[in-house]
């Protein structure tokens, strides 16, 4: 049963329900926490982007706010040196194999990565981590959209809508480690796969990996 509780985020007192995840409580109250992979409807968050770290009083180490249920009297800080450092590193790692060229990207100015960089004053180009340039075949077989894995941040959002909303079962993760990419079964073109071209995955993509053609 959900009941009303009061928590504090960055000194702001918020009344909310139990059974909610901290990330959504914060976002609903205009407190921005960076996130890429979070999906409100999902009960067991993927927690793969490692960007939504916060510090909670009483806990030794920062936690991902997307997996953290709120409890009565919880005191949260979204910006501490430790949190900032974790978020900065995660962000740099995500961008280390992300093909930038924002001016040529269809998601320019609507990109979640740009938004996080702006909000947290992070740079899109890191000096600390060597950039890995990778070339992939762009799959532009569908009529209205295309898939460019070199811009993918592996957030799982397209896979989630593909399974839970579109119920197509077309996209999934393949290969391992640095080679991990979004593919169809047997790596065929989207039009030759189970894809229904519903474009829900394109709307779910926070970056320019799945994008509408002009």
């Amino acid at each position, binding site marked *: 049963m959900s009941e009303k509780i009061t928590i504090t985020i960055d000194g702001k007192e918020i009344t909310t329900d139990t059974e909610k995840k901290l990330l959504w409580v914060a976002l609903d109250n205009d407190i921005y926490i960076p996130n890429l992979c979070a999906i409100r409807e999902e009960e067991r968050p993927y927690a793969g982007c490692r960007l939504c770290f916060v510090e909670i009083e009483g806990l030794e180490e920062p936690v991902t706010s997307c997996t953290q249920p709120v409890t009565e009297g919880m005191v949260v800080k979204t910006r501490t040196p430790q949190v900032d450092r974790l978020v900065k590193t995660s962000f740099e790692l995500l961008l280390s194999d992300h093909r930038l060229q924002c001016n040529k990207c269809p998601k320019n100015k609507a990109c979640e990565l740009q938004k996080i960089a702006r909000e947290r004053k992070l740079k899109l180009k890191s000096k600390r981590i060597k950039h890995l340039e990778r070339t992939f075949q762009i799959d532009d077989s569908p009529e209205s959209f295309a898939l460019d894995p070199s811009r993918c941040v592996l957030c799982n959002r397209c896979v989630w809508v593909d*399974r839970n909303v579109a119920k*197509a*079962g*077309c*996209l*999934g*993760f*393949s*290969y*391992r480690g640095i080679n991990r990419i979004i*593919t*169809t*079964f*047997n*790596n065929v073109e989207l039009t030759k*796969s*189970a894809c229904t071209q519903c474009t829900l995955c394109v709307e779910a993509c926070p970056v320019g990996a799945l994008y509408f053609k002009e």
Partner: protein
Amino acid sequence: MELLEGEKEVIVNYVEGILEEFDPVQENLVPILQEVQERLGYIPALAMEMIATALDLPPVDVYGPATFYNQFRLVPPGKYQFKVCMGTACYMAGGQIALDSFERRLNIKEGETTPDREFGLEHVTCVGCCTLAPVVMVGDQVEGHVTPTRVDGILLAYDAITDEKENEGDK
């Protein structure tokens, strides 16, 4: 890779048998894949589709784990499998050069098999005779000190270079 004549029936037969041995739950996915590879030598796309149907999963959820684990191979092994050693000693002694030579001569990439399924190419990490570096294994046979010239010698011994193929390589 194209299936050979009659191969489809063999795959369907084996995979149906294997699927009967397991409960159709997702936890059994990896054991099933292992069993398929054990009997067929590789995991054909057709087998993955059959497994997906049996476990009530989208086929891409079978493809994911099959590509994730190094133990699974999705292309059939060649009749002669060239294993180029990339252990530390062989790597330093020019294992990559040997691998490149094989790739050029056979016109396939590492991990692939020639369309006639005669020759396969893969890398291994240390076969335990580093003094012979760089080492290539052909089946159980060990070939040491493999220079590009030696690669040609090995391939000649297995009739891998015909005039036709050589010309293709020159193109």
